[in-house]
Protein backbone atom coordinates (compact mmCIF):
# COMPACT_ATOMS: atom_id res chain seq x y z
CA UNK A 1 0.00 0.00 0.00
CA UNK A 2 2.73 2.44 0.97
CA UNK A 3 4.62 2.20 -2.35
CA UNK A 4 1.40 2.77 -4.29
CA UNK A 5 0.56 5.84 -2.24
CA UNK A 6 4.07 7.17 -2.66
CA UNK A 7 3.84 6.46 -6.40
CA UNK A 8 0.60 8.41 -6.61
CA UNK A 9 2.05 11.39 -4.77
CA UNK A 10 5.30 11.49 -6.70
CA UNK A 11 3.62 10.87 -10.07
CA UNK A 12 1.25 13.74 -9.38
CA UNK A 13 4.22 15.92 -8.49
CA UNK A 14 6.05 15.04 -11.70
CA UNK A 15 2.94 15.71 -13.79
CA UNK A 16 2.52 19.04 -12.04
CA UNK A 17 6.10 20.04 -12.83
CA UNK A 18 5.70 18.99 -16.45
CA UNK A 19 2.35 20.76 -16.96
CA UNK A 20 2.75 24.05 -15.11
CA UNK A 21 4.53 25.82 -17.98
CA UNK A 22 1.87 24.75 -20.45
CA UNK A 23 -0.85 25.88 -18.07
CA UNK A 24 0.72 29.30 -17.68
CA UNK A 25 0.80 29.81 -21.46
CA UNK A 26 -2.71 28.45 -21.91
CA UNK A 27 -4.09 30.62 -19.10
CA UNK A 28 -2.68 33.88 -20.39
CA UNK A 29 -2.84 33.29 -24.14
CA UNK A 30 -5.73 30.86 -24.49
CA UNK A 31 -3.37 29.04 -26.79
CA UNK A 32 -2.10 25.48 -26.67
CA UNK A 33 1.63 25.29 -27.08
CA UNK A 34 2.38 21.99 -28.78
CA UNK A 35 6.04 22.93 -28.77
CA UNK A 36 5.91 22.21 -25.05
CA UNK A 37 7.16 18.69 -25.77
CA UNK A 38 10.03 20.06 -27.84
CA UNK A 39 10.96 22.49 -25.07
CA UNK A 40 10.89 19.63 -22.59
CA UNK A 41 13.33 17.79 -24.85
CA UNK A 42 15.61 20.84 -24.91
CA UNK A 43 15.70 20.69 -21.12
CA UNK A 44 16.59 17.02 -21.24
CA UNK A 45 19.52 17.76 -23.51
CA UNK A 46 20.62 20.62 -21.27
CA UNK A 47 21.06 18.00 -18.57
CA UNK A 48 22.96 15.81 -21.04
CA UNK A 49 25.26 18.73 -21.87
CA UNK A 50 25.89 19.37 -18.18
CA UNK A 51 26.87 15.73 -17.77
CA UNK A 52 29.08 15.79 -20.86
CA UNK A 53 30.91 18.86 -19.58
CA UNK A 54 31.41 17.13 -16.27
CA UNK A 55 29.45 19.77 -14.36
CA UNK A 56 27.46 19.24 -11.22
CA UNK A 57 24.15 17.68 -12.39
CA UNK A 58 22.18 20.43 -10.66
CA UNK A 59 23.72 22.94 -13.07
CA UNK A 60 21.66 21.30 -15.84
CA UNK A 61 18.50 22.84 -14.42
CA UNK A 62 19.34 26.57 -14.72
CA UNK A 63 20.99 25.74 -18.03
CA UNK A 64 17.70 24.24 -19.21
CA UNK A 65 15.81 27.33 -18.03
CA UNK A 66 18.09 29.57 -20.08
CA UNK A 67 17.91 27.42 -23.23
CA UNK A 68 14.13 27.00 -22.98
CA UNK A 69 13.58 30.69 -22.24
CA UNK A 70 15.63 31.86 -25.20
CA UNK A 71 13.99 29.44 -27.63
CA UNK A 72 10.52 30.26 -26.26
CA UNK A 73 11.12 33.99 -26.54
CA UNK A 74 12.14 33.59 -30.16
CA UNK A 75 9.19 31.36 -31.00
CA UNK A 76 6.72 33.84 -29.57
CA UNK A 77 8.27 36.70 -31.52
CA UNK A 78 8.51 34.96 -34.86
CA UNK A 79 5.61 32.51 -35.01
CA UNK A 80 3.14 32.48 -32.14
CA UNK A 81 2.45 36.21 -32.11
CA UNK A 82 0.66 36.15 -35.45
CA UNK A 83 -1.59 33.23 -34.48
CA UNK A 84 -3.41 34.61 -31.43
CA UNK A 85 -6.68 34.74 -33.35
CA UNK A 86 -6.25 31.29 -34.90
CA UNK A 87 -6.09 28.88 -31.96
CA UNK A 88 -6.30 25.67 -34.00
CA UNK A 89 -3.59 26.88 -36.39
CA UNK A 90 -1.48 27.76 -33.37
CA UNK A 91 -1.63 24.13 -32.26
CA UNK A 92 -0.33 23.05 -35.66
CA UNK A 93 2.33 25.71 -35.94
CA UNK A 94 3.70 24.97 -32.47
CA UNK A 95 3.70 21.28 -33.34
CA UNK A 96 5.75 22.20 -36.40
CA UNK A 97 8.14 24.10 -34.11
CA UNK A 98 8.40 20.96 -32.04
CA UNK A 99 9.43 19.03 -35.15
CA UNK A 100 12.04 21.66 -35.93
CA UNK A 101 13.44 21.41 -32.40
CA UNK A 102 13.49 17.63 -32.61
CA UNK A 103 15.32 17.61 -35.95
CA UNK A 104 17.77 20.31 -34.88
CA UNK A 105 18.63 18.24 -31.82
CA UNK A 106 19.02 15.15 -34.00
CA UNK A 107 21.44 17.03 -36.22
CA UNK A 108 23.55 18.25 -33.30
CA UNK A 109 23.49 15.03 -31.29
CA UNK A 110 22.04 11.99 -33.04
CA UNK A 111 18.94 9.91 -33.04
CA UNK A 112 20.15 7.72 -30.20
CA UNK A 113 19.37 7.69 -26.51
CA UNK A 114 21.47 9.74 -24.11
CA UNK A 115 21.76 9.71 -20.38
CA UNK A 116 22.26 12.48 -17.93
CA UNK A 117 23.86 12.11 -14.54
CA UNK A 118 21.07 12.17 -11.93
CA UNK A 119 21.55 14.82 -9.26
CA UNK A 120 20.65 12.34 -6.51
CA UNK A 121 20.91 8.59 -6.48
CA UNK A 122 19.78 5.89 -4.09
CA UNK A 123 16.79 5.04 -2.02
CA UNK A 124 15.43 6.11 1.32
CA UNK A 125 13.39 4.02 3.69
CA UNK A 126 9.81 5.17 4.27
CA UNK A 127 7.83 3.14 6.83
CA UNK A 128 10.17 0.25 6.17
CA UNK A 129 9.82 0.41 2.38
CA UNK A 130 12.75 1.57 0.28
CA UNK A 131 11.77 4.39 -2.09
CA UNK A 132 13.61 6.44 -4.69
CA UNK A 133 15.06 9.53 -3.04
CA UNK A 134 14.97 11.49 -6.26
CA UNK A 135 11.22 11.05 -6.72
CA UNK A 136 10.70 12.40 -3.22
CA UNK A 137 12.97 15.33 -3.96
CA UNK A 138 10.90 16.01 -7.07
CA UNK A 139 7.77 16.08 -4.93
CA UNK A 140 9.33 18.72 -2.72
CA UNK A 141 10.39 20.65 -5.81
CA UNK A 142 6.85 20.48 -7.20
CA UNK A 143 5.54 21.95 -3.97
CA UNK A 144 8.16 24.68 -4.09
CA UNK A 145 7.31 25.38 -7.74
CA UNK A 146 3.61 25.63 -6.97
CA UNK A 147 4.23 27.94 -4.01
CA UNK A 148 6.74 29.98 -5.99
CA UNK A 149 4.45 30.46 -8.96
CA UNK A 150 1.53 31.34 -6.72
CA UNK A 151 3.65 33.85 -4.82
CA UNK A 152 4.92 35.37 -8.07
CA UNK A 153 1.40 35.73 -9.44
CA UNK A 154 0.05 37.15 -6.17
CA UNK A 155 2.93 39.22 -4.94
CA UNK A 156 4.51 40.95 -7.91
CA UNK A 157 3.11 43.66 -10.11
CA UNK A 158 3.90 41.60 -13.21
CA UNK A 159 2.00 38.73 -11.63
CA UNK A 160 -0.95 41.00 -10.97
CA UNK A 161 -0.91 42.23 -14.57
CA UNK A 162 -0.70 38.63 -15.76
CA UNK A 163 -3.69 37.63 -13.69
CA UNK A 164 -5.58 40.63 -15.01
CA UNK A 165 -4.81 39.60 -18.60
CA UNK A 166 -6.00 36.06 -17.84
CA UNK A 167 -9.28 37.34 -16.38
CA UNK A 168 -10.20 40.04 -18.87
CA UNK A 169 -7.67 41.08 -21.44
CA UNK A 170 -9.67 43.95 -22.93
CA UNK A 171 -10.20 45.55 -19.56
CA UNK A 172 -6.54 45.12 -18.70
CA UNK A 173 -5.53 46.89 -21.90
CA UNK A 174 -7.88 49.74 -21.14
CA UNK A 175 -6.09 50.22 -17.81
CA UNK A 176 -2.75 50.65 -19.57
CA UNK A 177 -1.41 47.10 -19.31
CA UNK A 178 0.64 46.11 -22.36
CA UNK A 179 -0.86 42.71 -22.88
CA UNK A 180 1.52 41.95 -25.74
CA UNK A 181 4.47 42.29 -23.38
CA UNK A 182 2.71 40.20 -20.74
CA UNK A 183 2.17 37.46 -23.34
CA UNK A 184 5.78 37.56 -24.44
CA UNK A 185 7.05 37.28 -20.87
CA UNK A 186 4.58 34.52 -20.09
CA UNK A 187 5.54 32.48 -23.12
CA UNK A 188 9.22 32.85 -22.29
CA UNK A 189 8.60 31.83 -18.68
CA UNK A 190 6.37 28.91 -19.69
CA UNK A 191 9.03 27.71 -22.12
CA UNK A 192 11.71 28.00 -19.47
CA UNK A 193 9.56 25.98 -17.06
CA UNK A 194 9.01 23.31 -19.71
CA UNK A 195 12.76 22.96 -20.23
CA UNK A 196 13.39 22.84 -16.48
CA UNK A 197 10.82 20.05 -16.25
CA UNK A 198 12.64 18.26 -19.06
CA UNK A 199 15.91 18.47 -17.15
CA UNK A 200 14.28 17.31 -13.92
CA UNK A 201 12.77 14.18 -15.45
CA UNK A 202 15.99 13.00 -17.12
CA UNK A 203 16.82 10.54 -14.34
CA UNK A 204 13.40 8.94 -14.83
CA UNK A 205 13.27 8.75 -18.60
CA UNK A 206 15.88 8.36 -21.26
CA UNK A 207 16.80 11.42 -23.33
CA UNK A 208 16.09 11.19 -27.04
CA UNK A 209 14.77 13.66 -29.64
CA UNK A 210 11.18 12.50 -29.13
CA UNK A 211 11.14 12.28 -25.35
CA UNK A 212 8.74 15.20 -25.11
CA UNK A 213 5.84 13.77 -27.10
CA UNK A 214 4.42 11.41 -24.48
CA UNK A 215 4.76 14.06 -21.79
CA UNK A 216 3.16 16.67 -24.03
CA UNK A 217 -0.03 14.64 -24.36
CA UNK A 218 -0.32 14.12 -20.61
CA UNK A 219 0.40 17.77 -19.90
CA UNK A 220 -2.06 18.88 -22.55
CA UNK A 221 -4.84 16.75 -21.09
CA UNK A 222 -4.13 17.95 -17.56
CA UNK A 223 -4.22 21.57 -18.65
CA UNK A 224 -7.50 21.14 -20.52
CA UNK A 225 -9.03 19.59 -17.42
CA UNK A 226 -7.62 22.31 -15.16
CA UNK A 227 -8.60 25.46 -17.02
CA UNK A 228 -6.20 28.20 -16.01
CA UNK A 229 -5.83 27.62 -12.28
CA UNK A 230 -2.68 26.31 -10.61
CA UNK A 231 -4.84 24.83 -7.85
CA UNK A 232 -7.00 22.82 -10.21
CA UNK A 233 -3.82 21.68 -11.94
CA UNK A 234 -2.58 20.28 -8.63
CA UNK A 235 -5.92 18.59 -8.09
CA UNK A 236 -6.01 17.20 -11.64
CA UNK A 237 -2.44 15.93 -11.29
CA UNK A 238 -3.38 13.99 -8.17
CA UNK A 239 -6.63 12.57 -9.61
CA UNK A 240 -5.39 11.67 -13.10
CA UNK A 241 -1.86 10.77 -11.99
CA UNK A 242 -3.36 8.64 -9.22
CA UNK A 243 -5.63 6.88 -11.69
CA UNK A 244 -2.64 6.22 -13.93
CA UNK A 245 -0.65 4.66 -11.09
CA UNK A 246 -3.57 2.48 -10.02
CA UNK A 247 -4.38 1.31 -13.54
CA UNK A 248 -0.71 0.60 -14.21
CA UNK A 249 -0.46 -1.43 -11.02
CA UNK A 250 -3.51 -3.57 -11.56
CA UNK A 251 -3.95 -3.69 -15.34
CA UNK A 252 -0.45 -3.23 -16.63
CA UNK A 253 1.59 -0.21 -17.66
CA UNK A 254 0.32 -0.33 -21.24
CA UNK A 255 -3.23 0.50 -20.25
CA UNK A 256 -1.80 2.88 -17.66
CA UNK A 257 -0.29 4.83 -20.53
CA UNK A 258 -3.68 5.79 -21.91
CA UNK A 259 -5.41 6.41 -18.60
CA UNK A 260 -4.79 10.14 -18.42
CA UNK A 261 -5.91 10.82 -21.99
CA UNK A 262 -9.00 8.61 -21.82
CA UNK A 263 -10.07 9.83 -18.39
CA UNK A 264 -9.59 13.47 -19.36
CA UNK A 265 -11.72 12.96 -22.47
CA UNK A 266 -14.52 11.55 -20.34
CA UNK A 267 -14.25 14.26 -17.71
CA UNK A 268 -14.41 17.00 -20.33
CA UNK A 269 -17.41 15.36 -21.96
CA UNK A 270 -19.33 15.44 -18.71
CA UNK A 271 -18.03 18.78 -17.51
CA UNK A 272 -16.59 20.97 -20.28
CA UNK A 273 -14.90 23.28 -17.79
CA UNK A 274 -13.16 20.30 -16.13
CA UNK A 275 -11.96 20.83 -12.58
CA UNK A 276 -11.95 24.61 -12.68
CA UNK A 277 -14.71 25.99 -10.54
CA UNK A 278 -16.00 28.68 -12.89
Amino acid at each position, binding site marked *: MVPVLLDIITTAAILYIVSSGLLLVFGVMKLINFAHGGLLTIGGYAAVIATALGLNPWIGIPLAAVFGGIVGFGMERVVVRSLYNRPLDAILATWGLSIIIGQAITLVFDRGVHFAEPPIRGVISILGEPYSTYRLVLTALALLLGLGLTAALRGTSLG*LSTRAVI*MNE*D*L*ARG*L*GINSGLVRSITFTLGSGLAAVAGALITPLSSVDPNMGVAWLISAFMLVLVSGSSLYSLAFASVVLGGAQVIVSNYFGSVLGGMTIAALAAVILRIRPQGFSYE
Partner: protein
Amino acid sequence: MTEAVLTVNGLSSGYGQATVIRNLDLQIASGEIVAVVGKNGMGKSTLLKSIMGYLPKFSGSVAMAQHPIGDSRPHEIARLGVAYVPQEKALFQDLTVEENIRLSLRGSVSWNDAKETMGRCFPFLLRRLQQKAGTLSGGEQKMLLMARSLAVEAKVLLIDEITEGLQPSIISNLVKIIKTERDRSGLGVLLVEQNIPFTRAVSDRYVLLDKGEISGSGNTRDPDTHEKIAAHISL
Protein backbone atom coordinates in the same frame (compact mmCIF):
# COMPACT_ATOMS: atom_id res chain seq x y z
CA MET B 1 -11.26 76.30 -20.11
CA THR B 2 -10.16 77.02 -23.65
CA GLU B 3 -7.59 74.40 -24.52
CA ALA B 4 -9.07 71.17 -25.90
CA VAL B 5 -7.86 68.05 -24.09
CA LEU B 6 -9.68 65.72 -26.46
CA THR B 7 -10.50 66.43 -30.10
CA VAL B 8 -12.51 64.09 -32.29
CA ASN B 9 -12.46 65.08 -35.92
CA GLY B 10 -14.68 63.53 -38.60
CA LEU B 11 -14.57 60.13 -36.89
CA SER B 12 -16.25 57.13 -38.52
CA SER B 13 -15.99 53.72 -36.94
CA GLY B 14 -17.88 50.52 -36.23
CA TYR B 15 -17.74 46.76 -36.14
CA GLY B 16 -16.51 44.77 -39.12
CA GLN B 17 -18.16 46.36 -42.12
CA ALA B 18 -20.98 48.05 -40.25
CA THR B 19 -20.39 51.75 -39.75
CA VAL B 20 -21.89 52.85 -36.46
CA ILE B 21 -20.30 56.24 -35.89
CA ARG B 22 -20.52 58.52 -38.90
CA ASN B 23 -18.29 61.54 -39.43
CA LEU B 24 -18.47 62.76 -35.85
CA ASP B 25 -16.83 65.94 -34.50
CA LEU B 26 -16.44 66.61 -30.79
CA GLN B 27 -14.16 68.68 -28.56
CA ILE B 28 -13.69 68.52 -24.82
CA ALA B 29 -11.91 71.38 -23.13
CA SER B 30 -9.83 70.99 -20.03
CA GLY B 31 -12.18 71.05 -17.03
CA GLU B 32 -15.26 70.52 -19.14
CA ILE B 33 -17.91 67.84 -18.63
CA VAL B 34 -19.74 66.82 -21.79
CA ALA B 35 -22.59 64.33 -21.96
CA VAL B 36 -23.46 62.31 -25.05
CA VAL B 37 -27.13 61.45 -24.89
CA GLY B 38 -28.97 59.01 -27.10
CA LYS B 39 -31.13 55.98 -27.19
CA ASN B 40 -29.75 52.47 -27.05
CA GLY B 41 -28.10 51.35 -30.24
CA MET B 42 -27.29 54.85 -31.44
CA GLY B 43 -23.55 54.31 -31.05
CA LYS B 44 -22.78 55.86 -27.67
CA SER B 45 -20.66 52.98 -26.37
CA THR B 46 -19.15 52.52 -29.80
CA LEU B 47 -17.93 56.11 -29.70
CA LEU B 48 -16.07 55.56 -26.44
CA LYS B 49 -14.63 52.24 -27.60
CA SER B 50 -13.36 53.87 -30.78
CA ILE B 51 -11.71 56.71 -28.92
CA MET B 52 -10.12 54.16 -26.58
CA GLY B 53 -8.66 52.22 -29.53
CA TYR B 54 -10.70 49.04 -29.13
CA LEU B 55 -12.38 49.50 -32.49
CA PRO B 56 -10.76 50.43 -35.77
CA LYS B 57 -11.20 54.02 -36.87
CA PHE B 58 -12.41 53.94 -40.48
CA SER B 59 -11.69 57.59 -41.05
CA GLY B 60 -11.16 60.82 -39.16
CA SER B 61 -8.84 61.49 -36.25
CA VAL B 62 -8.71 61.61 -32.48
CA ALA B 63 -6.18 63.72 -30.59
CA MET B 64 -5.20 64.23 -26.96
CA ALA B 65 -4.31 67.91 -26.64
CA GLN B 66 -2.08 68.18 -29.75
CA HIS B 67 -1.01 64.55 -29.77
CA PRO B 68 -2.82 62.36 -32.35
CA ILE B 69 -3.85 58.96 -30.96
CA GLY B 70 -5.51 57.62 -34.08
CA ASP B 71 -3.74 54.30 -34.42
CA SER B 72 -2.61 53.79 -30.86
CA ARG B 73 -3.59 50.68 -28.98
CA PRO B 74 -5.74 50.80 -25.85
CA HIS B 75 -2.89 50.49 -23.37
CA GLU B 76 -0.96 53.29 -25.08
CA ILE B 77 -4.01 55.53 -25.02
CA ALA B 78 -4.53 54.75 -21.34
CA ARG B 79 -0.91 55.66 -20.64
CA LEU B 80 -1.36 58.99 -22.39
CA GLY B 81 -3.87 59.91 -19.73
CA VAL B 82 -7.27 58.60 -20.78
CA ALA B 83 -9.22 56.75 -18.10
CA TYR B 84 -12.06 54.64 -19.42
CA VAL B 85 -14.99 53.33 -17.41
CA PRO B 86 -16.73 50.64 -19.47
CA GLN B 87 -20.38 49.87 -18.95
CA GLU B 88 -20.01 46.15 -18.46
CA LYS B 89 -17.35 43.86 -16.98
CA ALA B 90 -15.48 46.89 -15.80
CA LEU B 91 -13.92 45.36 -12.68
CA PHE B 92 -11.86 42.28 -12.00
CA GLN B 93 -14.42 40.51 -9.86
CA ASP B 94 -11.94 38.00 -8.42
CA LEU B 95 -9.33 40.59 -7.49
CA THR B 96 -9.42 42.63 -4.31
CA VAL B 97 -10.29 46.30 -4.16
CA GLU B 98 -6.63 47.13 -3.68
CA GLU B 99 -5.52 45.00 -6.64
CA ASN B 100 -8.16 46.56 -8.86
CA ILE B 101 -6.80 50.00 -8.08
CA ARG B 102 -3.11 49.05 -8.17
CA LEU B 103 -3.48 47.56 -11.65
CA SER B 104 -4.22 50.89 -13.24
CA LEU B 105 -1.51 52.90 -11.50
CA ARG B 106 1.51 53.86 -13.54
CA GLY B 107 4.27 56.38 -13.73
CA SER B 108 4.27 59.07 -11.14
CA VAL B 109 1.13 58.01 -9.32
CA SER B 110 1.98 55.97 -6.22
CA TRP B 111 -0.22 53.75 -4.12
CA ASN B 112 -0.19 56.42 -1.43
CA ASP B 113 -1.49 58.99 -3.91
CA ALA B 114 -4.23 56.54 -4.86
CA LYS B 115 -5.16 56.03 -1.21
CA GLU B 116 -5.35 59.78 -0.80
CA THR B 117 -7.78 60.02 -3.74
CA MET B 118 -9.89 57.22 -2.28
CA GLY B 119 -9.94 58.86 1.13
CA ARG B 120 -11.11 62.09 -0.43
CA CYS B 121 -13.80 60.60 -2.68
CA PHE B 122 -14.88 57.21 -1.35
CA PRO B 123 -13.42 56.75 2.13
CA PHE B 124 -15.37 53.52 2.71
CA LEU B 125 -13.11 51.77 0.19
CA LEU B 126 -10.07 52.22 2.44
CA ARG B 127 -11.70 49.94 4.99
CA ARG B 128 -12.47 47.29 2.36
CA LEU B 129 -9.13 47.11 0.54
CA GLN B 130 -8.76 43.35 0.93
CA GLN B 131 -12.32 42.52 -0.09
CA LYS B 132 -12.92 40.89 -3.48
CA ALA B 133 -14.48 43.39 -5.89
CA GLY B 134 -17.14 40.86 -6.86
CA THR B 135 -18.47 40.78 -3.30
CA LEU B 136 -19.21 44.52 -3.24
CA SER B 137 -22.77 45.61 -3.86
CA GLY B 138 -23.72 47.02 -7.25
CA GLY B 139 -23.46 50.61 -6.06
CA GLU B 140 -20.19 50.00 -4.28
CA GLN B 141 -18.74 48.48 -7.43
CA LYS B 142 -19.60 51.62 -9.38
CA MET B 143 -17.89 53.72 -6.72
CA LEU B 144 -14.81 51.49 -6.91
CA LEU B 145 -14.85 52.02 -10.67
CA MET B 146 -14.94 55.76 -10.24
CA ALA B 147 -12.23 55.59 -7.60
CA ARG B 148 -10.02 53.60 -9.96
CA SER B 149 -10.40 56.04 -12.80
CA LEU B 150 -9.87 59.07 -10.57
CA ALA B 151 -6.83 57.54 -8.86
CA VAL B 152 -4.80 57.44 -12.07
CA GLU B 153 -4.97 61.26 -12.32
CA ALA B 154 -5.95 61.13 -15.97
CA LYS B 155 -6.43 64.12 -18.25
CA VAL B 156 -9.59 62.74 -19.84
CA LEU B 157 -12.23 60.53 -18.31
CA LEU B 158 -14.57 58.48 -20.52
CA ILE B 159 -17.59 57.14 -18.65
CA ASP B 160 -20.11 54.72 -20.12
CA GLU B 161 -23.52 54.80 -18.40
CA ILE B 162 -22.29 54.70 -14.85
CA THR B 163 -25.75 55.41 -13.42
CA GLU B 164 -27.48 52.33 -14.77
CA GLY B 165 -29.24 50.60 -11.89
CA LEU B 166 -28.03 53.06 -9.24
CA GLN B 167 -30.06 54.64 -6.46
CA PRO B 168 -30.65 58.40 -6.69
CA SER B 169 -28.64 59.04 -3.52
CA ILE B 170 -25.55 57.37 -4.97
CA ILE B 171 -26.06 59.24 -8.23
CA SER B 172 -26.08 62.59 -6.52
CA ASN B 173 -22.95 61.63 -4.61
CA LEU B 174 -21.26 60.78 -7.92
CA VAL B 175 -22.29 64.14 -9.34
CA LYS B 176 -20.65 65.91 -6.43
CA ILE B 177 -17.43 63.90 -6.66
CA ILE B 178 -17.04 64.22 -10.42
CA LYS B 179 -17.48 67.99 -10.23
CA THR B 180 -15.13 68.40 -7.26
CA GLU B 181 -12.40 66.37 -8.93
CA ARG B 182 -12.87 68.28 -12.15
CA ASP B 183 -12.41 71.56 -10.27
CA ARG B 184 -9.35 70.16 -8.51
CA SER B 185 -7.44 68.87 -11.52
CA GLY B 186 -8.97 70.38 -14.64
CA LEU B 187 -10.02 66.95 -15.84
CA GLY B 188 -12.03 66.75 -19.09
CA VAL B 189 -14.96 64.34 -18.88
CA LEU B 190 -16.92 62.69 -21.69
CA LEU B 191 -19.85 60.70 -20.44
CA VAL B 192 -22.45 58.70 -22.22
CA GLU B 193 -25.86 58.71 -20.59
CA GLN B 194 -29.56 58.03 -20.77
CA ASN B 195 -30.35 59.32 -17.31
CA ILE B 196 -31.68 62.87 -17.71
CA PRO B 197 -31.45 64.07 -14.11
CA PHE B 198 -27.84 62.90 -13.83
CA THR B 199 -26.94 64.44 -17.16
CA ARG B 200 -28.43 67.77 -16.16
CA ALA B 201 -26.79 67.79 -12.76
CA VAL B 202 -23.29 66.84 -13.81
CA SER B 203 -22.56 68.14 -17.27
CA ASP B 204 -21.80 71.56 -18.72
CA ARG B 205 -22.78 70.69 -22.25
CA TYR B 206 -24.65 67.91 -23.99
CA VAL B 207 -24.77 66.50 -27.51
CA LEU B 208 -27.55 64.32 -28.87
CA LEU B 209 -26.44 61.21 -30.76
CA ASP B 210 -28.75 59.76 -33.38
CA LYS B 211 -27.71 56.75 -35.48
CA GLY B 212 -24.05 57.58 -35.07
CA GLU B 213 -24.40 61.26 -35.91
CA ILE B 214 -24.75 64.33 -33.75
CA SER B 215 -28.27 65.60 -34.19
CA GLY B 216 -28.25 68.42 -31.68
CA SER B 217 -26.38 69.98 -28.79
CA GLY B 218 -26.83 72.55 -26.10
CA ASN B 219 -25.71 74.08 -22.88
CA THR B 220 -27.05 72.02 -19.97
CA ARG B 221 -28.09 75.16 -18.07
CA ASP B 222 -30.49 76.15 -20.87
CA PRO B 223 -34.08 75.97 -19.61
CA ASP B 224 -35.29 73.63 -22.38
CA THR B 225 -32.64 70.96 -21.73
CA HIS B 226 -34.94 68.47 -20.07
CA GLU B 227 -37.54 68.66 -22.81
CA LYS B 228 -35.00 68.38 -25.59
CA ILE B 229 -33.28 65.37 -24.10
CA ALA B 230 -36.54 63.69 -23.10
CA ALA B 231 -37.91 64.12 -26.61
CA HIS B 232 -34.72 62.65 -27.96
CA ILE B 233 -34.52 59.52 -25.88
CA SER B 234 -38.09 58.41 -25.19
CA LEU B 235 -40.57 56.91 -27.60
